[in-house]
């Protein structure tokens, strides 16, 4: 019995001494943390996607407090979230243009010619290292879904050998852009609803040999649109997202792109999903 009491007393004594040490250490070695960092971190989406370029949401919050970044640099946060952070900190935020990723290729398994039998790792980076990949076009989507796997928000779907971004799920973090070995994914403003789904700089005839839906730079869309709405680079035309007046849906209806590479986002997804169900 005695030994039992001794043990209890000894443990209690050790507990009191250690507790006192911790108490003192907490006072002496206290690190001042800006309480606003915690506040901002809580207001941020908390997905730690790294789309802002920082290590995570807490790191980004710190950079906001240090006035290195504006809250609107967070690609995930909605406009309300951004303004609530701005309000909490009493700062102004400019209107940031919300951007989403677009895969600039419309060549799925039906439309793009497959030139080689590929029997390797199901990964775009690996495939691109072997003879440039199985597809005929050296600038087209390889269709093995490396971008879809890299997307933290499941916003990319592989349909019939083509990566498609669902804009309502995409937050524009840019993870897919870094992954794609073909460099055909880029960010476009969420308000831009019409895109030219082709990235190949090759000549029109060369593109037609390997793909049914390339941009052949016929300039029908350029003529129909207003000045500055399109950019012509070599043998490829792309929508200019920098301009004041973005291309609207009427262009799609009026121009009737002869190859069908100028599409609205909705139409693009509709076409691919319809083809997918045909295949299935």
């Amino acid at each position, binding site marked *: 019995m005695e030994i039992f009491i001794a043990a209890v007393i000894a443990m209690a004594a050790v507990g009191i001494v250690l507790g006192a040490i911790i108490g003192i250490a907490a006072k002496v070695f206290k690190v001042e943390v800006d309480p606003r960092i915690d506040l901002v971190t809580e207001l941020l989406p908390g997905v730690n996607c790294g789309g802002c370029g920082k290590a995570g949401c807490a790191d980004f919050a710190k950079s906001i407090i240090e006035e290195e970044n504006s809250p609107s640099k967070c690609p995930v946060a909605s406009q309300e979230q951004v303004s609530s952070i701005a309000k909490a900190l009493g700062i102004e935020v400019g209107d940031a243009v919300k951007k989403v990723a677009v895969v600039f290729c419309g060549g799925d398994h039906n439309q793009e010619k497959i030139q080689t039998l590929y029997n390797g*790792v199901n990964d775009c980076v690996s495939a691109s290292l072997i*003879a440039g990949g199985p597809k005929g076009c050296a600038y087209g989507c390889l269709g093995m879904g490396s971008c879809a796997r890299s997307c933290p928000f499941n916003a990319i779907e592989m349909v019939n050998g083509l990566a498609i971004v669902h804009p309502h799920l995409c937050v524009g973090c840019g993870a897919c852009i870094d992954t794609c070995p073909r460099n055909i994914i880029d960010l476009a403003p969420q308000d831009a609803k019409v895109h030219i789904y082709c990235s190949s700089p090759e000549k029109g005839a060369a593109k037609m040999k390997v793909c049914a839906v390339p941009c052949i730079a016929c300039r029908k869309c350029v003529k129909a649109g207003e000045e500055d709405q399109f950019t012509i680079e070599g043998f490829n035309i792309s929508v200019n997202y920098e301009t004041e007046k973005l291309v609207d849906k009427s262009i799609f209806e009026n121009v009737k792109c002869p190859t069908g590479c100028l599409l609205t986002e909705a139409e693009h997804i509709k076409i691919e999903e319809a083809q997918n169900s045909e295949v299935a």
Partner: protein
Amino acid sequence: MSKSKGLTFKGGIHPTKDGKSLSSSAAIQDAPLLEEYQLIIQQNIGAPPKLVVAKGDEVKKGQLIAEAGGFVSVPLHSPTSGKITKIDNIPGPMGVPVQAVFIAADGEDQWGELMSPMDWKTAEPQAIKDRIRDAGVVGMGGAAFPTHVKLSPPPEKKLNCLILNGAECEPYLTADHRLMIEFPEKVLEGAAILGRAVGVTDIYIGVEVNKMDAIDTLLAKADKYGIKIVGLQVKYPQGAEKHLISAITKREVPTGGLPMDIGCVVQNVGSAAAVTDAVVEGKALIERITTVTGVPIKNPSNWRLKLGTPVLEAIKFAGGVVCEPAKIILGGPMMGFAQKSLQVTITKNSSGILLMKKDEITQYQSVACIRCGKCVDACPMNLQPGSLSAAIESEKFDLASKNNVMDCVECGSCAYVCPSHRPLVQHFRRSKAEIRKLTRK
């Protein structure tokens, strides 16, 4: 000559059917002149050469087409005399389109002004190196690394051993074999010139013992130049730089290092012959010996092809095909690149054109690793391919990097022996690309 079995290294494989007998007795033939050559501009590793000609220009054989675009770069010369009709993209040997100069031959095949012949025995080493660069000589075994760069180590690294690679360990290829039999003087003289350029007198030529005729031919003439001929065991990848050094000198290149770190420099026998042409005759590198072989080829043979010869024409030279080919490989079956177009043209590193018929190739279904360890035995770089590929499949590139995936020479020995047919080399290539991307950031 040492043991009859020959010297070797740890690991490697013995492909059961090496296919060399198809073309090993066919003497080198000069290819007939074509009407058009499509000369790919970048034929070397490193900076792309800069074009100095334009559409419509008349060129002579050996005339400069593009000048070196940096230190790690070499100039490019016209393979024949004629007119430049256009400059356009053509399918490249790596599968991606590349820029090429189209030269319509005038049928004269007339040399322009040759560089002045040099007496290499008295020439300054730097002058020899400059000549090798000006003639556009690169590693002709397959890598196409500019030769003069290998010969110019930083001053703190002293070279004391030069090895010429005549192993030709790739199955099917016999271009180097024929070169050593038919032009032993060119190879030996090239070795001596390279030795003078780097100030090395300890010179070896390593040849696999399945080419005894080449060894005998070289041995008969080697004494004059003080060059040692070494028999090597028949094993793949015996001709890989690091393994050749290990077999002949027993020195090991350290992880992440280069042969120059242990005082060695390795050159291909084909490059040595090109060096002789450049220094002794003043001729630029505009043609190479290429094996056109495979079961579907009517007359498997060795050809002296001008750079820019389309693969299709080369196949026609060898009599065309007797059955439908299912795969076309530029280079050997182990390290070569499968092609998707016959429009691809011969470059400075095209050691062979190999056709395979359908029942020779198999589409394997890759399954899970059974941890048998065969890949570990086969790896000549002492890596653990099985566990590396597991790390890469789960995208743990830092772990792969820690386990030295960057040392992989992509020889394919592991994938060759894998009973689960795992695409090991492909994983390693991807991993190397990802790690390089990360370190660049």
